[in-house]
């Protein structure tokens, strides 16, 4: 192997924190220039641009280099993380550069998730600002334990040590308060390059390394995680003779012959081979992408975690988490989302927001919802237990994203703090008489018919007539009416979006119990949102649930106004009224689509009976 092979160089990922005013772009540009990473044609372009911006001076304005995102900013498009690459003799660097003000928290968290080290910039003239605290808090939240504090613009304070020292002291205290012990501080002047790539002549009192030196030598532990863990990404099965589990090891190391357990669960086996395209390995460790084979047939699928049998990962389905909300729509407690962690995706909902956290002061504030860029401390509930680690111990098994089930956007990132109670402690009580037995004794197939539509659309009227009809035919039914339930089960809920989500969730769970009891349940609730109706649908097995869209136009509902509610809503006496100042998301493909304006009640009931109960069943 040739000595200059850069595979021998290590890789450092870092993030720069600071706003345009702090000279972040200038510092980054200067760093690239000093490391000799700017090609001639780029320097030439920069010289031209600099001359245009500063006609009187012969300076290189490095801030112009990184402003490729300016055009975007003018177009009002989301600005986010840009990645830059450079190397020195000793190391390769990947810098996550996060410009932008409004989206700063989200972008910085994204950048920080890819970084080992953060460079925090402070303007020497201003000292620590609320944003310094915010940057440091986000670093701490995302688990960055090493920070380089660059006190910039020293040239504007006469390179005075008396200015630098108190800023350094104050910052070290701030970092300690937020749980970050390792701070390397240095004074720099990005514009002139002092202490960036070369030592400063004007600050002889500073004898430490330059920024580039620091970045080249700062020690980063490969991973905190010592216990062997590998999430299975892909099952490799080219033919009957080979069955391997491909994935990237995210903790510890593993040897051939090691005893492992497949999680969640308790299936044990030994490692037979560690396969790579370059030949089998006797041993592999965190960071390597390998394919493991086992000494016996065990059921392993994508998303499972292969772990050290002696020190398995904990398993749970309820957690306390820190959540950073990234979606345009707010987080609503009890709405269902997909949660992706490792290679596993499960259904999740936030059961409560304990508090939100002001990112500038870390003050804890009461909250019913989380908006874009807000951080909250929440309880989260999964529909399946997962193998996990606290984020502080293992980023790959403790960091997750939430995905909107409708539009598929990534709406949040989060870190697991601890499990609320181990899933293994909560068992389903096994009961001998089950749904099938109960249904058989009633001689019917239990079902849930979910009537959705605007207030006054005629949901209850149709359902009421249908129930009379079914009852006469000898079926066992129950009608759950949204309005009636609000007098009892849901009397504590109002009409905000959050309350509507919870309202529908409770109704859906009750309907589910009644179907389990063998009944045919007719549910009448406005249920204005897709995601709650989908939540309800997902509680039932295939064919058990039918969405009935009672499609009466708003004008008609308003004209009827049987309870006088539209009049009050228009008068501003009640708020959050569906169709007036709160949205109704119409079903996309309901099982039954009724148009009360066009057909008679009897026709609609007939349609329901025939659609939902095929002839053989009647």
């Amino acid at each position, binding site marked *: 192997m*040739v000595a200059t092979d850069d*595979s021998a160089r290590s890789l450092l990922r870092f993030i720069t924190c600071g706003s345009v005013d702090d000279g972040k772009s200038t510092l980054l540009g200067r760093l690239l220039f000093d490391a000799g990473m700017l090609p*001639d044609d780029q320097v030439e372009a920069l010289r031209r641009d600099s001359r245009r911006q500063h006609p009187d001076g012969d300076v290189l304005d490095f801030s112009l280099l990184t402003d490729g995102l300016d055009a975007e900013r003018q177009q009002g498009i989301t600005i986010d993380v840009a990645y830059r690459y450079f190397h020195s003799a000793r190391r*390769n660097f990947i810098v996550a550069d996060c410009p932008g003000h409004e989206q700063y928290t989200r972008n910085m968290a994204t950048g920080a998730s*890819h970084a080992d080290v953060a460079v925090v910039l402070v303007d020497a003239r201003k000292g620590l600002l609320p944003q310094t605290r915010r940057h440091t808090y986000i670093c701490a939240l995302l688990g960055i334990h090493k920070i380089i504090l660059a006190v910039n613009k020293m040239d504007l304070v006469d390179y005075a040590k008396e200015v630098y020292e108190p800023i350094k002291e104050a910052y070290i205290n701030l970092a300690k308060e937020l749980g970050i012990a390792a701070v390397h501080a240095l004074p720099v002047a990005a514009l002139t390059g002092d202490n960036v790539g070369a030592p400063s002549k004007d600050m002889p009192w500073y004898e430490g390394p330059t920024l580039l030196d620091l970045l080249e030598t700062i020690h980063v532990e490969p991973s905190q995680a010592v216990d062997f863990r590998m999430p299975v*990404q892909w099952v490799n099965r080219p033919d009957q003779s*080979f069955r391997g589990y491909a994935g990237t090891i995210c903790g510890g190391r593993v040897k051939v012959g090691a005893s492992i357990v497949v999680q969640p669960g308790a299936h044990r086996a030994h490692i037979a081979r560690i396969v790579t395209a370059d030949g089998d390995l006797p041993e592999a460790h965190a960071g390597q992408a390998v394919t493991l084979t086992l000494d016996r047939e065990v059921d392993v699928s*994508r998303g499972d975690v292969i772990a050290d049998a002696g020190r398995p990962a904990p398993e749970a389905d309820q957690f306390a988490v820190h959540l950073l909300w990234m979606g345009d729509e707010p987080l609503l407690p009890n709405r269902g989302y997909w949660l992706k962690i490792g290679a596993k995706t499960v259904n999740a909902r936030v059961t409560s927001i304990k508090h939100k956290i002001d990112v500038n002061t870390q003050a804890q504030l009461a909250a019913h919802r989380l908006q874009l860029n807000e951080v909250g401390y929440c309880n989260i509930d999964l529909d399946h237990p997962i193998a996990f680690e606290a984020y502080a111990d293992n980023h*790959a098994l403790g960091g997750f994203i939430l995905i909107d089930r409708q539009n598929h956007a990534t709406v949040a990132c989060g870190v697991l703090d601890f499990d609320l109670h181990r899933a293994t402690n909560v068992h389903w009580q096994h009961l001998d008489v089950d749904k099938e037995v109960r249904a058989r004794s009633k001689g019917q197939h239990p079902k849930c018919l979910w009537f959705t539509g605007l207030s006054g659309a005629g949901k209850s009227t149709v359902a009421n007539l249908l129930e009379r009809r079914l009852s006469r035919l000898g079926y066992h039914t129950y009608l759950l009416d949204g309005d009636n339930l609000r007098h009892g089960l849901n009397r504590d809920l109002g009409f905000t979006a959050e309350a509507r989500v919870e309202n529908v969730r409770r109704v859906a769970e009750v309907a589910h119990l009644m179907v389990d009891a063998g009944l045919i349940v007719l549910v009448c609730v406005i249920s204005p949102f897709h995601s709650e109706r989908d939540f309800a649908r997902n509680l039932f097995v295939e064919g058990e649930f039918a969405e009935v869209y009672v499609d009466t136009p708003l004008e008609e509902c308003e004209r009827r106004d049987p309870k006088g509610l539209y009049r009050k809503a228009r008068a501003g006496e009640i708020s959050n009224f569906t169709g007036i100042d709160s949205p109704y998301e119409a079903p996309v493909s309901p099982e039954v689509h009724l148009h009360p304006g066009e057909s008679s009640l009897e026709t609609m009931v007939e349609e329901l009976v025939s659609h939902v109960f095929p002839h053989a069943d009647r």
Partner: protein
Amino acid sequence: MNQFSGNLDQLEAESIHIFREVAASFQRPVMLYSIGKDSSVLLHLLRKAFYPARPPMPLLHVDTTWKFREMIAFRDQVAAEGDVQVIVHINEDGVRKGISPLVHGATVHTDVMKTVALKQALDKYGFDAAIGGARRDEEKSRAKERVFSFRNAQHRWDPKRQRPELWNLYNTHIHKGESVRAFPLSNWTEMDVWHYIRREQIPVVPLYFAKTRPIVLRDGALIMVDDDRFVLREDEKIEQRTVRFRTLGCYPLTGAVESTASTIDEIIAEMAASRTSERQGRVIDHDPSASMERKKQEGYF
């Protein structure tokens, strides 16, 4: 013995992770194969990621009919190895209209024979994920591109619908008709690519190595006359020059650099001393009406 502390080992493992995530999460993935050095590295990683199984996705080459002849020969050699299926797609409509970079210019040619052709192929085969070899260090607007880049049903890149990417957790959920482009080499630099080619002894098209070739100086670029479709303008003459290519594309649109580097070691040494950026030789990037940003929104890589 592999110590796995180095840059290349990390980059390789991360790329393999991305390949596996695509294979596990999409119905019908494809790897876009453009025959260049980045594609050679991609193909190598594709094979590694799924070893000992054969790669679970085909390669797609969008042939503009103006590629260097040596590229096509190289592609056919790869196809002959037989472990991966190579699909070649040509925009026949463009061929019928006689679209040519020499007549219609770089922008129209690239749009019709590359961008439109790619969309045709993706629609024809119903691919829902296309792996490409783009790197973030290539160009300013690519510096912020995602590893999994979301495209709507019209294959357009909508900046507002790109998803934040944290850790190595990729959101692979799409609706029917939508697709993603995935870029396993996002974090590689041009230098990493060459070091990796050297370390892994990956074959590349000989055009990357210096040789005496028939060259015409046109609009400041050294264009190689690869076949008789190239018509000389007045005052132009063919000269024999020792050149090589840093990137490969359609021959009338790809400028050579004067160089004597004829081995990988010499290329790496030349690059270490080099002071110009990689895409400088591409004619299309200099066309002011066709910024990379706009091409990307329209579905170009």
